[in-house]
């Protein structure tokens, strides 16, 4: 086996772990699996196109602001009204929202993918111990670690973080100690929106176009990663996402030619198997009903 595969697999895994984390955060705080999360990444992509010629710090900041804004809008307009509805209503609502945003982008930006000028600085490659590592992968890894640390700090050290954790464990008791659910949920959407923006930046860093259908496949993988890793558990989600990305890349690399095309099928069948054995995921979350 070519160890080069490991490098790519780790990079992809890191990206998906972030994506899954964003999904899991919102789920743990309100029981909603946000199908439309992928569209946040897509919107991030279009923001990047818009801000392409700006200095890098403005690009990043601008993208984050746009995506977080849309994320909050999503919560306020689409999800708050169905907050106490059945799980099915919430799921279908997020499905409908995803479709709406996707088609809106299609109408607004056109059916053809919009070109994105590559970030050539990121294509620079280094050779380390015989392996080729591009700047983009280094950036992905470093960013992922920073985000994970940042999120951990936020959850542990800040007031809103503690309130968030209390809410994910026992939302009724959280209300009884005066925690405002609107505030906590909004915080969750801001954080997950920021993560989506970061994923968009890392994802589109090596791509040359953004299309209205971007983000659909990522969210699907993140979705199943969250389920495998355990809904309601941040650590589990990150691990699940990483695993999905990693295994997916490795399967694509290692399977014999004829079977390689079935990598997707293997993975999704694995998901079904996990769901059946442990509906709560590999790291079962306490008290979260699936």
């Amino acid at each position, binding site marked *: 086996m070519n160890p080069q595969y490991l490098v790519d697999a780790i990079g992809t895994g890191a990206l998906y772990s972030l994506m899954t984390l964003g999904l899991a955060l919102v789920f743990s705080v309100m029981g909603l699996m946000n199908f439309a999360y992928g569209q946040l990444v897509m919107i991030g992509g279009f923001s990047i196109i818009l801000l392409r010629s700006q200095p890098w710090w403005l690009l990043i900041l601008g993208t984050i602001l746009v995506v977080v804004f849309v994320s909050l809008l999503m919560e306020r307009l689409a999800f708050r009204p169905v907050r106490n509805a059945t799980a*099915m209503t919430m799921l279908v609502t997020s499905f409908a*929202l995803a*479709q709406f945003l996707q088609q*809106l982008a299609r109408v607004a930006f056109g059916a053809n993918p919009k070109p994105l000028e590559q970030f050539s600085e990121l294509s620079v490659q280094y050779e380390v111990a015989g392996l080729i590592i591009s700047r983009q992968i280094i950036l992905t890894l470093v960013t992922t670690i920073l985000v994970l640390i940042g999120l951990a700090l936020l959850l542990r050290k800040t007031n809103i973080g503690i309130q968030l954790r209390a809410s994910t464990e026992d939302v009724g008791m959280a209300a009884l100690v005066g925690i405002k659910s609107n505030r906590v949920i909004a915080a969750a959407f801001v954080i997950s929106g920021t993560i989506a923006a970061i994923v968009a930046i890392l994802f589109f860093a090596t791509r040359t176009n953004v299309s209205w259908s971007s983000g659909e496949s990522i969210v699907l993988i993140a979705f199943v990663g969250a389920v495998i890793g355990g809904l309601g558990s941040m650590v589990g989600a990150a691990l699940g996402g990483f695993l999905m990305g990693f295994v997916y890349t490795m399967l694509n690399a290692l399977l014999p030619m004829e079977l390689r*095309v*079935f990598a997707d*099928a293997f993975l999704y069948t694995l998901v079904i198997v996990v769901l059946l054995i442990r509906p709560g995921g590999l790291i079962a979350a306490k008290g979260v009903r699936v």
Partner: protein
Amino acid sequence: MKSSVSTWSRWAWLAGLLAAPIIIVTFLISLTNDVSMIQRCTTALILMVMVIGLHVFSGNSGVVSFGSVAFAMIAAFTSALITIPADKKPSLFPDMPDFLNWLLSFTVPVPLGILISVAFTAVIALLVGVPLVRLSGLAAGIGTLAFLVVVQVVVTKWKAVTRGESTMVGVPKETTLWWALGAVVLVIAIAALYQVTRRGRRLIATREDDKAAMSIGISIPIERLWGWVASCSIAAFGGALYGHYIATFSAQTFSIALTFFIIAMLVIGGLGSLTGAVVGVIVVQVLAEVLRTVETQGIGPIPQIDAPGLTEMVLALILLLVLIARPAGITGGREITSWVKGRTSKASRDVDPEVAQ
């Protein structure tokens, strides 16, 4: 104890009240001799078959399934494989694996092909259903979605058998308006029969209150399995018909977008009601018509807006609004029979005594 005479009468009313207007309208449309209109009507009828299929499971059990389109896809491909004329097959499927070589010479008339493919798909549905019906809520949604993706991938990548990403061609184009109408009437009859008889009412009981249902001896997985197999078979039927209607299709035809479309029609019409399934299809198709006209010509004061995706976008928006403002949909989960007869047939909190063991 209600007598069986009453059950048959309830079935007759429900099926009749739903089928009659559809038959009449279809008949009227056929008289117009407007080819394009007839085409759209046929498509709508086939979609109705699929939506009713989804209703039979998701509406009665309360469990969302994203997978019905997968079964439509399997049936469509299966029927294609066994109905394409034998002389065309070798060139279409040059790499057919050895164990399936017999398919190359095996050709049946389309009606038989549809029958066989539905039966075959039903068996697959049964196998898949056994583990899947144990999942609830979110797990079921994700599980069925995962299943759809698996089937899509297999169909797309198994080039030798399915022509992979290329479209399936040579499929006999035999589905007519009348076939579609006949299918809808048949499926309405079956779905109505299921939900007025004891079998279906047991499943509905699990939707209303699963603990109460279990307490009177209803096995949730078994009832769901019945509904699941029936539902997937109907979806398969719709898929096979569709395949023989459009005659060229690929895995992309049976996509998540189609899944969304079907779910949207069901929810807008009103989840949990057969009437809702029918009404939902009609309303959404009419709406789609209006939007398509806007896209191509404009209507009255509204100018032509040439924007692919406009129809889908407006539909998604409407679905969103329905979910937010009136999640019960147009029918509110009630059947047409309750309107006509003036009493509510919405299930009460008490478990239906007739379904107890």
